[in-house]
């Protein structure tokens, strides 16, 4: 299957028009010894064969439609209303490019404007860009942005920020040589405010905090912002947009830059991507934002329309002086988030968040009641840490024997939590699944 429309007679006609006798003649500029190399690839398949083969590969994976799942750790299973994929499947959306020609792209531009507006509402901020790659790159871009704004270099980050986000932060900043200081967490699983105070100084560009943090615990953003602002640093808050259906927006608690992963808004797990990073800020920092922005304007007849705007921040205009190198973003994933938020609306998002909260707390109480298991940390949203009597690896293995996908093994990133499992419970887990998990844990002990 090749998707090529030309017949041999078409090609002949075209070559005649061009004035050459074969396509090879157009390629003579390629050094002869390198021209037409052999390509050792599997032979072409028909559509039927491709489907059969890929279905086979897909079926080798344990998909979570068929297994209760309690894994989160930055990638979340939430309900996706049918309307979301229905809209995404419209070719007019998914086969369009970046809306550089506004008269021919009002659909995408309007949807991004709606997306920006809703992310601003959720976070309590003034301005949001049109998307970044994922939560990790959003944290990294926010840190670079904070360094530009404050003209300082040092980045202070809480150790209970997602480990992968901290790793990406360190990758992104290695070329510029920005030093990173990590601060620990307290016995409640929250950032240790005393260490935060000690670590922040007049060299600090920002303090990066996750809320709820990687352990699922609720942080005190107001205290964090006060400590950051005292030394002239910015507070970067990394948040879960589902939690914002319930909890006070970080904008109200003094956050300067709000970032996060918005996969949970209408997007499948898809083995870790494509996901959706967002970055919101106050009006005063708008011109330091990386990535695209859509703004409202009017046409020559005064009718409302939307355009890409403030492009002088971007690489195609400013080149090495741009606020970031980002070009392609995650527009279609942002569209999914837009449709999701519109479908859930004010009441629905709150209900999703409350369901997560109640179910996670129910699960936590049940597990805490089991001999040998304990909950070391404090207030949480939809994820919580459980200390287990057997190694987390063994526990997960035994859960899988019962068809249950267990939690995240915290020993991977926190040696001191080698007996810790991070469980996630959402509206997707009915009570029977939670009860089955609790029974299974009781048996594995």
């Amino acid at each position, binding site marked *: 299957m090749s998707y*090529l429309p030309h017949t041999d007679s078409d090609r002949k006609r075209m070559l005649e*028009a*061009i004035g050459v006798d074969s396509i090879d003649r*157009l390629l003579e*500029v390629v050094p002869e010894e390198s021209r*037409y190399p052999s390509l050792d*690839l*599997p*032979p*072409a398949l028909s559509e039927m064969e491709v*489907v059969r083969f*890929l279905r086979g*590969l*897909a079926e*080798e*994976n*344990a998909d979570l439609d068929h297994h209760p799942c309690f894994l989160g750790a930055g990638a979340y299973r939430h309900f996706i209303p049918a*309307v979301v994929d229905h809209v995404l499947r419209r070719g*007019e*959306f*998914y*086969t369009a*490019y*970046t809306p550089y020609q*506004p*008269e*021919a792209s009002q659909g995408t531009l309007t*949807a991004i404007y*709606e997306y*920006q507006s809703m992310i*601003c509402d959720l976070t309590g901020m003034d301005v949001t860009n049109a998307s970044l790659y*994922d*939560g990790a790159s959003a944290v990294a871009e926010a840190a670079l942005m904070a360094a530009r704004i404050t003209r300082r270099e040092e980045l202070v980050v809480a150790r209970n920020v997602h480990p992968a986000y901290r790793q990406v932060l360190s*990758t992104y900043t290695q070329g510029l040589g920005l030093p990173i200081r990590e601060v620990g967490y307290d016995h409640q699983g929250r950032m240790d405010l005393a260490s935060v105070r000690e670590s922040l100084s007049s060299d600090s560009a920002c303090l990066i905090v996750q809320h709820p943090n990687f352990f699922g615990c609720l942080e005190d953003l107001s205290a964090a912002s006060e400590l950051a602002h005292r030394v002239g640093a910015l507070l970067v808050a990394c948040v879960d947009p589902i939690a914002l259906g319930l*909890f006070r927006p970080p904008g109200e608690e003094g956050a300067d830059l709000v970032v996060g992963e918005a996969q949970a808004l209408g997007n499948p*797990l*898809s*083995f870790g*991507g*494509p996901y959706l990073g967002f970055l919101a800020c106050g009006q005063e920092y708008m011109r330091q934002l990386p990535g695209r922005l859509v703004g*409202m*304007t009017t046409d*020559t007849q005064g009718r409302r329309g939307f355009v890409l*705007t403030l492009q002088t921040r971007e*690489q195609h205009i400013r*080149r090495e002086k741009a606020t970031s*190198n980002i*070009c392609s973003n*995650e527009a*279609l994933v942002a*569209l999914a988030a837009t*449709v999701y938020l519109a*479908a859930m609306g*004010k009441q629905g998002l709150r*209900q999703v968040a409350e369901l997560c909260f*109640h179910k996670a707390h129910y699960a936590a109480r049940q597990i805490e009641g089991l001999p040998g298991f304990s909950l070391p940390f404090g207030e949480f949203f939809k994820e919580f840490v459980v200390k287990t009597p057997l190694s987390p690896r063994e526990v*997960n293995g035994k859960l899988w024997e019962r068809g249950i996908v267990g939690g*995240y093994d915290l020993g991977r990133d926190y040696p001191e939590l080698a007996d810790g499992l991070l469980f996630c419970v959402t509206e997707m887990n*009915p009570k029977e699944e*939670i009860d089955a998990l609790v029974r299974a844990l009781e048996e594995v002990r």
Partner: protein
Amino acid sequence: MDEPLLFELSSPGRTGFSLPACDVPKTPLPEGRVRDDLSLPEVSERDLIKHFTRLSQLNFSVDTGFYPLGSCTMKYNPKVNEEMARLPGFAHIHPYQDEGLVQGALRLMYELQEYLAEIAGLPAVSLQPAAGAHGELTGMLMVRAYHQNRHDRERRVVLVPDSAHGTNPATAAMCGYRVMTIPSDGRGNIDADILRDRADESVAALMLTNPNTLGLFEERILEVAEIIHGLGALIYCDGANMNALLGIAKPGELGMDILHYNLHKTFATPHGGGGPGAGATAVREDLAPFLPLPLVARRETSEGTRYYLDYDRPLSIGKVGSFYGNFGVMVKAYAYIRSLGGDGLREVSEDAVLNANYLLSGLKGYYYLPYDRPCLHECVFSGRWQKEIGVRTLDIAKRLIDFGFHPPTIYFPLIVEEALMIEPTETESLETLEGFLAAMKEIAREAREEPDTLRSAPHKMPLSRLDEVTAARRPNLRWKGGFDKGGSFLLKFS
């Protein structure tokens, strides 16, 4: 455009969702943490679908028409690939599931790494970068790690031709490098003589696009590679234009050390209105240790072949994304490569080159052609003749919309005055190309005989030209209800 915004369709108490009742005992919500207000819109499912369907109809897209946007490779996106990415075994798996439970996904990634390595002629590949520019960042951080590992720390300069994509210098700057621009020569190549003259041992890398943004193959590429390698520096190849080279040439055999692909261009995955893309990055053997964490690897065990995520790579630059990259996009690219095979991919590039040269020869004489030689997958004209009679390239682009075509990329590359960068791709038929040529010729006539028709275009769209100056001067970047400029439009729809 008479479609109201979601916020204008909203009515208090209206809903478009249904969720199950809470089936567990409730827990008191934490005090002082709960928000008072959430101002998301409230719309019914029926209104929501009408809204987004109508919005979609305001877009140009590949599915609805010719989209010859240069450098973007807006080829047809096969529908079977969309279906494959949505299979539950791909769409509904968690990135932290035990490796034993995701062997099919890991195998797909492993094989895609291998295919992309073969096509590039570069043996090691990371699939983690989420887009082309992300691949550039990955590649340039590897350049840095490579030199550091050799204790070669004084290299502070990255060379970029003046025809380069803006992402190249922006990436180099993000990696802490100083950018030095190298001009192009009279035939549209990077000027190898100037390069030889200016480049010295402070250079870490040259970032080169080949074929370049003029759609021209770099005629002195082997010489350029010799100069750069002679200085101990590396060549980063921006693979945005790989649609020209599949089975035609392997960048690794032309001296390129690092190359990113845009799976969303070359391998037919859709652009999604600006993303998600995928920027798989390939490198030569001795750079492989620096690739991001993790790579997908394979080992033979007593139970057969096992695929796993290899984190044991101490020289790696580290992670560049939250998980393993845009897996959903990888599935589509994988399906595409398996559908075409090696011969099919070569035909893709051949027809892409044929189509671009057909447009090139058809428009010669109507528009100024700054570099008159056969192109590869795209051709770049200039609106200079039209500008002399008071019509700008922007006007030509807007007028094309009236003819039902998406405009080419305009005003890029920067080295061509009033540039029109046209990339037809291989999936467009002769009839489509002829329709486009006819429209471009008609527009050239209009420019001479009725220039106002162009200056006021487009005429057939729901909106006329938009005021971008005011948009930037008085930014309105979010809906703020009834009290801002946006709110005044409420009246129109009530």
